[in-house]
């Protein structure tokens, strides 16, 4: 299982929206956070989100202990089980 959390603020809504475009990904809500989860990897394309760099590199609020970030660069955010 892969789970990450993103705070629901205007700058971050595109992150959750792009994540949800993958049918394998579920985007739920826990309080004011998006809970983005999948059985396998979650990959979010930065350009598809339209996030400027300052927003992009600070958009992750939390990553569950059974998951880890394996890529967070100008191209994509990738979180995988592990």
């Amino acid at each position, binding site marked *: 299982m892969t*789970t*990450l*959390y993103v*705070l*629901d*603020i*205007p*700058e971050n809504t595109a992150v959750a929206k792009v994540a949800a475009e993958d049918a394998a990904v579920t985007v739920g809500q*826990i*309080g*004011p*956070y998006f809970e983005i989860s999948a059985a396998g990897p979650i990959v979010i394309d930065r350009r598809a989100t339209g996030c*400027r760099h*300052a*927003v992009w590199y*600070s958009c*992750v*609020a*939390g*990553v*569950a*202990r059974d998951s*880890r*970030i394996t890529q967070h660069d100008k191209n994509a955010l990738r979180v995988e089980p592990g």
Partner: protein
Amino acid sequence: MSDLDHRVRGVDHVAFPTFDPAATVRFYRDVLGFPVVHSICAAGWGPADHPDFIHFFFDIGNDDRIAFFYYFGTTPEVGGGPGAKGDVYARFDAAVPDYFVGSRHLAIHVDDEDDLLEYRRRLDASNWPVEMQVKHETIESIYTHDPNGYMVELTRAMRPVTPQEDLDANLTIDALLDVVAEPDPSFGKLLARKAELIVARAAGWAPVAP
């Protein structure tokens, strides 16, 4: 969260030394238009080596102030030898990374984009032009260094802070304190601890009515 009542009312003043009061007054009063609002002319007293000094203040809005000390008869060498980086208060050798040297700064708030650009115009017409204009997460800022080498930022909020950002900030700090209490703190460990706090505390959170 603290239950202590919050009684303070912003910055009274923040103070820095200067060895170039003429340029300092040009920058803050004549370029930026910050009024001189207070000054103290003091004969050296207390410790025997204390020089005579002028302590002068500029209004930075909201009745908050930036202040300078000018000590007669001193030069920047009073603070140590020359450095490859830094300002007249703190100097560093070339090996010290720029992120560290540039970390300490004063940010002055403006109401909106018009005001930010007005200060940009004033600086760009001076000897201290804007070095950088950046949209951060939720604020937009311009930066320059004053005649003393101090980094000065002027910044505007691009939108009001939302209540959930206050929750998030508190979860971050609680997670940070947990992580730095253990060996080898890292960003990954912080995000893992914060995820636990989100699960434990975010679902039951409700914004406080204004």
